[in-house]
């Protein structure tokens, strides 16, 4: 397998407006490397800088500072070669083309391109090929954007809120297609508001807030990082002093014969309990991703920089 990273961002910043007052740091120094084949979810509140980052990744805007590399080169080159493709959330379609004509138009630009019928089939819109785009539903238009992104059979697929407007079945079909391609080695980066989608489909979650990456890891790691986990064990008269001394332990709750330990390092606690104490019936439970998301991104006392491009791409 090729060892060149699919994406490498080094010290990337993007500022809008002139220096001094009123300057907005939409992206404020991020480093991110994505290996080929990874499926990465990009999470963060509106204005966190996700869209600005995606824009730079696609070569739609240039960073103020730092380096953006896609497959070891310039993002625009990767776009021209069809190595990177994207599904944007809104706009971007002409109402008086038919669905098929839109795909044919785009297909004529890529060398090589997948057959038109194949991508229509894969996006689930082969039956509405002759419909005018303006007469297609929001979900169908979203599938059309997905079809367009599949044309070049990209090595890296970037998706901004990809399942917006799709019904449950559409969403399920979509993710099964994405997983199939990921198994064949396609790198996928998606921004989403559906935390359960990130939880279910991403190998890795990158959490952004105020232009910075605040967390980066598997869904399980992110959950643990924010809220920690709870370890429950049956242990009458626990040695609370010893437990408090363990690394990462935040709080201890003794409830009858049970002890409930909130910790950032549940592995250490579990290992200690099982090897050094008579505790038994261990249960380790994580908080859900939403709790983690709120905990890591929720600090609302600080005013958030607005992401000027959020509306344009989002």
């Amino acid at each position: 397998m090729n060892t060149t990273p699919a994406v490498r961002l080094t010290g990337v910043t993007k500022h809008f407006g002139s220096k001094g007052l009123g300057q907005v740091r939409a992206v404020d120094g991020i480093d991110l490397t994505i290996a080929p084949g990874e499926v990465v979810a990009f999470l963060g509140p509106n204005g966190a800088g996700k869209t600005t980052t995606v824009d730079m990744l696609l070569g739609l805007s240039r960073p103020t500072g730092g380096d953006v590399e896609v497959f070891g080169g310039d993002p625009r080159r990767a776009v021209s070669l069809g190595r990177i493709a994207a599904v944007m959330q809104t706009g971007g379609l002409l109402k008086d083309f038919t669905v098929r004509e839109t795909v044919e138009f785009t297909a004529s630009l890529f060398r090589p391109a997948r057959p038109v019928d194949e991508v229509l089939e894969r996006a689930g819109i082969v039956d509405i090929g002759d419909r005018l785009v303006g007469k297609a539903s929001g979900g169908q238009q979203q599938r059309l954007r997905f079809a367009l992104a599949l044309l070049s059979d990209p090595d890296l697929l970037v998706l901004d809120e990809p399942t917006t407007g799709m019904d449950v079945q559409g969403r399920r079909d979509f993710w099964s297609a994405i997983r199939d391609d990921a198994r064949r080695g396609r790198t996928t980066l998606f921004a989403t508001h559906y935390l359960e989608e990130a939880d279910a489909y991403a190998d890795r979650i990158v959490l952004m807030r105020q232009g910075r990456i605040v967390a980066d890891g598997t869904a399980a790691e992110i959950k643990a990082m924010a809220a920690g986990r709870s370890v429950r064990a049956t242990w009458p008269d626990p040695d609370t002093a010893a437990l408090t001394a363990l690394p990462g332990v935040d709080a201890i709750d003794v409830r009858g014969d049970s002890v409930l330990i909130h910790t950032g390092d549940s592995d250490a606690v579990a290992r200690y309990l099982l090897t050094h104490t008579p505790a038994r019936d261990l249960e380790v439970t994580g908080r859900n991703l939403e709790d983690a998301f709120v905990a890591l991104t929720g600090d609302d006392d600080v005013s958030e920089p607005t992401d000027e491009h959020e509306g344009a791409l989002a």
Partner: protein
Amino acid sequence: MSTMIDSTTRTVPPFGGFSGRILGLELRRLLRNKRAVIFTLVMPSVFFLLFGTDGDYKTESAGHGNVTAWIMVSMAVYGAMIATTSGGAMVATERALGWSRQLRLTPLHPVAYVAIKTLVAMTMGLVAIVVVFIVGSLWGAELPMWRLLLCGLVGWATSLVFAALGLFMGYLLPSDNVMQILGPSLAILSFAGGLFIPLDQMGDVFATIAKFTPAYGVGVLSRAPLGDDQSVLLGVVNVLAWAAVFIAGAAWRMSRDTQRV
């Protein structure tokens, strides 16, 4: 499902993505737009039939043809103007729709894109001229064939000026109703430039002003093969000056625009 495309076989399309396939799809799309078809292909002929087929006009001579031919050429130029202006304005409209953003995710070069739009506009302009000429020939316009062809060719070539106007105005005006503003404006420019009524039927002041408006030069040059007595040199200066203004304006707006795609 086949395996992934080997990235070493990937390449970019020739001519920045420009191709006959894309041109064909664009034309098909344009012909589907009923309003565009009515305004560019039907209205100029209707105007010709209304204003140009008076019995006296067919017997009265204008240069090497009759007055009906004079009006036919003017109306053909008017049709070409509408076609090329609306074609140019499509660039900005499609930008506002986010389509050009979608195209930025493909290898299509921005210059190739503008070239396609211009060619589509010019093709529509040519069709507009041909339609009026056919209607005109059937309803009594008389002039030698080679002069007719030359009139059409000059009218078509000079209407390129208005493609630049469309580009410029498309960026300047609110995108959802560019043609609502440009349509009536073009009619006024056509009146002012002597396409609908000859300059010698205007008052002195208006006739002088007319020579400085953009439709004047295009009209004069297109009718020059008729042997029209108006000044060809003045027409050339007029066309070049307005072309410079519109192209500079379009370039200015577009260069500011590409900074934020």
